[in-house]
């Protein structure tokens, strides 16, 4: 076995030199994939072997060196395309990497979401971070470990399987040793991953399966510089954008000159109906933006959809209809009755506590650098390049953490705002931060939906035929390399047109995510009525259509259980064969104390279940409420969630996601609905759009079913759907009324009780 080390200078980083080395024959797995022609660029992937696809995001980013670098001073550099959104992904992948490489986690540094440095893993969304990134990091780290072991075997003259590794130091039985850093410091892994290197068994894991302190929490608790809001590059100036009062408002006139005279104002930018200001100080920019708003005259549309009539609007639109499940009822199944119901939910907003922020800088070389908390730095960067009319190589996006992200919020639009203002003010970093009002009114919401269900039951009350029809506007209008999806690009003098939205198809689905129930109904038909027009700006929000679809499925099955005079848990199990689904339902019931629960006046219990997307984590939720019959007010007394996310890397990380999602879903379900009309969005702050507060949050218990060695199942959105139905079911149990329209406000519950 020979090692050919090709010490050519290939990349220059910040003060460090990275070289490539090739290891033909260093392990048979590399023999066919490693050789690169001398002089070939290291980033060029080797000829793809006809083999099964590599695991996770390695599929599109096979080069080991694009993920891992062995650096000087005992450091290892991990580079990932997925980004931290508050979900703890960077800590989880660090745990995986450290375990597979057998190093202390402290040796790791991570770069994520920099379009010039990291592998392109697409958007950080859809509960895909662990399946995509976690799986890739685990496999690539195992590959790197094997490469390093083979190199050490050669250097020490000992068989690789006789060597042991302890924190990157490799020892032979005779005491001879070397280390990762002695072997390859500063050189790049120029080979493709195999996805075949053996993974650490559960028994040999040091970090995976344990709840380590999340890397980002200590600096966040002590005022460390970690947020995008905390970046203060030299020479930074402050920008603000003035949005139209309503989506389709026309700008009639603006007196920019009066604003240019205000203290600290450096520039007023007008391009079509895109209005912005740049000032020396932040409060000056805010004041100037307020003045610019006063100095602008707008014409509102005469007619526009209103939140008051959204249910009629949804049913009145032209739709694209797709039958996504069509399983005819067997001839042997006899129907003894038909039950129908209609479920409705309004628009709901992400409403991050920290408004969207970005910094744009137009450099001397024409490069637009944008610091952003976008979930999709690559696609958003390409969309911004299109908006600016420049090559996408001229836009450099760098992810920096922002306030929690529950889907496509204002982050990408703020990045586009910053780029437009920075273009108008070259050479200086221009920072933009949306106001609370901007964030509430202009972020894309989770679409309102309407769902009609119909079931035929037999003489025992069991379901023999199930029909599910849903109406929804889009759930995905992400930038996706298209400037027309960026809000400010649509407001320019030469506006970019918004593309006609499409509904995501199988297996993840979008509006119809989780519309196919996991239950085993003899007849089962699901039809999506997709609306391509808009009543309000919408895009991906935690769970997409799953929140509404699971609300409808799990409410309706509860109605059918009550009609059959069956226990809601037992009735579900009667219709569900999926073993892991049954297990979470039973686990939640056990933790809740379902079988020994005693009914008291005004109190009720509810249970609901879903497997997110029918392919990610399994979650069952049971909760107890008290309903005041005279006011209709619901108090949630306690909640229990059982979750199966497959192989659990960080138990506390999974619990945090499930618990947080549950509480957020309670807030949506109890309180939230965006109000808007022809004058614009009326839900413009925390008073006009209240969310759940400390005194309203119930105790939450999360129990996990860990399945080491099985695939990671995405967790982040798994509790949104089941929570809504568990709540409605508990209200039904408490006061005997079925409320099928969200949110479950006191007025709505009271009206149902009085009806």
């Amino acid at each position, binding site marked *: 076995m020979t090692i050919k080390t090709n010490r050519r200078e290939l990349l220059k980083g910040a003060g460090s030199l990275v070289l490539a080395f090739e290891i033909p024959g260093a392990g048979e797995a590399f023999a066919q994939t490693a050789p690169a022609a001398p002089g070939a660029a290291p980033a060029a992937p080797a000829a793809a072997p006809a083999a099964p696809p590599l695991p996770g995001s390695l599929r599109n980013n096979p080069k080991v060196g694009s993920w891992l670098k062995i650096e000087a001073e005992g450091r290892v550099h991990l580079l990932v395309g997925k980004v931290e*959104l*508050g*979900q703890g992904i960077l800590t989880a992948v660090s745990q995986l990497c450290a375990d597979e490489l057998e190093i202390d986690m402290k040796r790791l540094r991570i770069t994520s979401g920099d379009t010039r440095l990291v592998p392109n893993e697409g958007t950080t969304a859809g509960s895909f971070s662990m399946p995509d990134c976690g799986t890739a990091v685990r496999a690539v780290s195992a590959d790197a470990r094997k490469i390093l072991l083979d190199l050490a075997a050669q250097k020490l003259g000992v068989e690789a399987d006789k060597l042991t590794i302890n924190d990157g130091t490799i020892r032979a039985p005779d005491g001879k040793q070397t280390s990762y850093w002695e072997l390859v410091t500063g050189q790049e892994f120029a080979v493709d991953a195999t996805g075949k290197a053996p993974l650490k068994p559960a028994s040999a894991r040091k970090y995976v399966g344990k*709840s380590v*302190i*999340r890397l*980002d*929490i*200590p*600096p*966040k*608790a*002590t*005022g*460390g*510089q*970690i*947020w995008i*809001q*905390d970046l*203060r590059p030299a020479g930074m100036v402050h920008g603000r954008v003035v949005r139209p009062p309503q989506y389709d408002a026309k700008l009639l006139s603006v007196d920019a000159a009066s604003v240019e005279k205000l*203290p600290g104002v450096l520039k007023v930018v007008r391009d079509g109906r895109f209005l912005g200001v740049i000032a020396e*100080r*932040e*409060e000056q920019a*805010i004041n100037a933006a307020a003045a610019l708003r006063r100095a602008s005259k707008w014409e509102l549309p005469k007619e526009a959809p209103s939140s008051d009539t959204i249910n009629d609007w949804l049913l009145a639109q032209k739709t694209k209809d797709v039958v996504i499940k069509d399983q005819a009822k067997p001839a042997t199944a006899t129907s003894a009755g038909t039950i129908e119901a209609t479920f409705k939910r309004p628009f709901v907003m992400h*409403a*991050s*506590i*920290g*408004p969207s922020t970005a910094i744009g800088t137009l450099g001397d070389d024409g490069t637009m650098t944008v610091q952003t908390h976008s979930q999709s730095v690559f696609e958003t960067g390409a969309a911004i390049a299109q908006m600016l009319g420049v090559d996408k190589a001229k836009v450099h996006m760098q992810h920096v*953490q*922002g*306030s*929690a*992200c*529950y889907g496509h919020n204002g982050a990408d639009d703020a990045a586009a705002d910053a780029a437009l203002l920075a273009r108008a003010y070259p050479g200086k970093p221009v920072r933009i*931060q949306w*106001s*609370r009002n901007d964030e509430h009114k202009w972020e894309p919401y989770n679409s309102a939906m309407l769902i009609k269900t119909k079931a035929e039951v037999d003489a025992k009350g069991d379901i023999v035929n199930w029909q599910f029809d849903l109406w929804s506007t889009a759930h995905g209008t992400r930038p996706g390399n298209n400037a027309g999806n960026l809000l400010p690009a649509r407001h320019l003098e030469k506006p970019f047109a918004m593309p006609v939205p499409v509904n995501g198809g199988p297996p993840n689905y979008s509006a119809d995510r989780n519309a196919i129930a996991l239950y085993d109904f003899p007849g089962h038909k699901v039809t999506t009525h997709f609306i391509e027009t808009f009543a309000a700006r919408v895009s991906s929000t935690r769970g997409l259509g799953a929140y509404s679809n699971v609300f409808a499925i799990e409410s309706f099955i509860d109605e059918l259980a009550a009609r059959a005079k069956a226990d809601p848990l037992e009735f579900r199990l009667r219709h569900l064969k999926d073993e892991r689904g049954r297990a979470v339902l039973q686990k939640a019931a056990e933790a809740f104390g379902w079988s020994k629960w005693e009914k008291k006046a005004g109190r009720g219990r509810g249970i609901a279940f879903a497997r997110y997307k029918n392919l990610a984590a399994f979650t069952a939720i049971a909760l107890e409420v008290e309903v005041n019959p005279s006011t209709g007010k619901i108090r949630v007394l306690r909640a229990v969630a059982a979750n199966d996310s497959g192989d659990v890397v960080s138990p*506390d990380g999974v619990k*945090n*996601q499930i*618990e*947080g*999602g*549950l*509480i*957020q879903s309670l807030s949506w379900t109890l309180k939230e609905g965006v109000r808007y009309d022809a004058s614009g969005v009326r839900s413009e*702050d*925390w*008073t006009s759009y209240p*969310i*759940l*507060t*400390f*005194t309203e*949050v119930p*105790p*939450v218990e999360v129990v996990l079913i860990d399945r080491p060695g099985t695939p990671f199942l995405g967790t982040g959105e798994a509790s949104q759907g089941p929570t809504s139905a568990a709540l409605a079911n508990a209200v039904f149990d408490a006061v005997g009324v079925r409320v099928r329209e969200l949110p479950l406000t006191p007025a709505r519950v009271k009206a149902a009780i009085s009806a």
Partner: protein
Amino acid sequence: MTALKVNGRTHEVTAPDDAPLLYVLRNDLKFNGPKYGCGLSQCGACTVIIDGQAVRSCVTSVGSVVGQEITTLEGLGDINAPHKLQKAFIDEQAAQCGYCMNGMIMRSKVLLDNNPKPTDGEIRQALDGNLCRCGAHNRVVRAVLRASQEA
């Protein structure tokens, strides 16, 4: 020139008297702790402590607090020597994104200064005006209880 007493030190700042304290702390003095969340005194992300009171710095003018003792999150402790509340928030992993954490810790500091052994209910009451969107509420309450049990 305005003299501001922050975290036990006097800082000279050049800012108009009507500038919100939040921007002066963040931009002139480069403190990261207080966060902009709403600018409307509705969410609590910008909370600082002024003469023992939890104050929303987004609606407090810098001219109104000259000569008063201002404490930011950085004034409680740092990453190497965190205050017991900061340590408790870390130990309880009392955050999902953590953007609201500054306000949670600062409001809880004032609570514990006035009521060293609060009940779960008293903590929830004290924090009811501090918004969290991620659903980390119960972790925050556990962190405050934990801190209250430390000497």
